[in-house]
């Protein structure tokens, strides 16, 4: 067998290769298939920071709400609607801050990896992320418009989770698991209605820190 292969190699003399070359070929194929379909410069640190922002935001929200509770005798300083608007504004600022941080750190990571940030793959990643996210954003605006404030936390978590699952085809596959966890938390937030802030802290705070840290240290190895 061994000699037959060798003889064949000599006959087809243009491709005398060693086993190692074949192994290298296979690993090259896998590498290129991966790189050409997945954007792998997402930064774990941006997940950790987003999580910390979210926890700070949840803390501010909690303080505002408990402060409000102190005036629960009908002499409240401001109407409930105003308080809701303030909390939503805090949430929006936190979300914006997280996006900016993610963008800056991802660009840095991409430079380090010698990967361009704006590629056909990263465009697909963004598009697939944004379709559920924008849908969710509009949905939440409609919830606010209709006055269903209690459904905001479940809806944001569920749509964010769906966006992650949808985008995970174009980046690290574990992003899918983070997405599934967010969806589950969103559904739980719906079951235990009235604990929106707690579920926000868990979903956008704790989960981001855990997954961000896992990813950050995995890369270090």
């Amino acid at each position, binding site marked *: *067998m061994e000699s*037959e*292969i060798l003889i*064949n*190699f000599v006959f*087809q003399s*243009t*491709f005398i*290769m060693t*086993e190692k070359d*074949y*192994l290298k*070929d*296979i690993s*090259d*194929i896998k590498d*290129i*298939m991966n*790189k*050409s*379909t997945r954007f792998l410069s997402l930064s774990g640190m941006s997940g950790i920071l987003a999580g910390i922002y979210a926890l700070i935001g949840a803390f501010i929200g909690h303080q505002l709400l408990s402060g409000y509770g102190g005036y629960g005798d009908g002499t409240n300083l401001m109407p409930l609607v105003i308080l809701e608007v303030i909390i939503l504004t805090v949430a929006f600022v936190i979300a914006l801050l997280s996006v900016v941080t993610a963008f800056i750190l991802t660009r840095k990571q991409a430079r380090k990896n010698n990967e*361009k940030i704006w*590629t*056909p793959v990263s465009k697909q990643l963004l598009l697939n992320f944004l379709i559920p996210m924008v849908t969710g954003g509009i949905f939440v605006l409609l919830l606010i418009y209709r006055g269903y404030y209690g459904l905001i936390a479940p809806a944001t978590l569920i749509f964010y989770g769906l966006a992650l699952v949808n985008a995970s085809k174009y980046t690290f596959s574990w992003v899918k698991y983070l997405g599934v966890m967010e969806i589950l938390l969103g559904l739980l937030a719906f079951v235990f209605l009235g604990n929106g802030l707690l579920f926000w802290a868990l979903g956008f705070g704790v989960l981001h820190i855990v997954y961000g840290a896992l990813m950050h240290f995995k890369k270090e190895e």
Partner: protein
Amino acid sequence: MKSIIENINKIFDHRVRLGIMSALMVNDYVDFNSLKELLGVTDGNLASHLKSLEKEKYIHIHKEFIGKKPNTKYSSTKLGTLEFKKHINALEQLIKGRL
């Protein structure tokens, strides 16, 4: 054993051509510049390997314009996909057979 060797495709026995086909296997289309970055090769080098794959009818060339800039995209033909799969299977069997 002989059939395995026959399935090793000489055309794919080059880093750049192997890379082009790998990228085209998992994408509907890949444009010239993306291939260039992915494989880290020069324009001329990439163009000549693309030409040889086209000559074998393993890839399709799609020329289009984005605004005024020409944009050339490539996709794998049915024949190219079939031949590449045979090639990969042969590589895998060779490795398995010799380990």
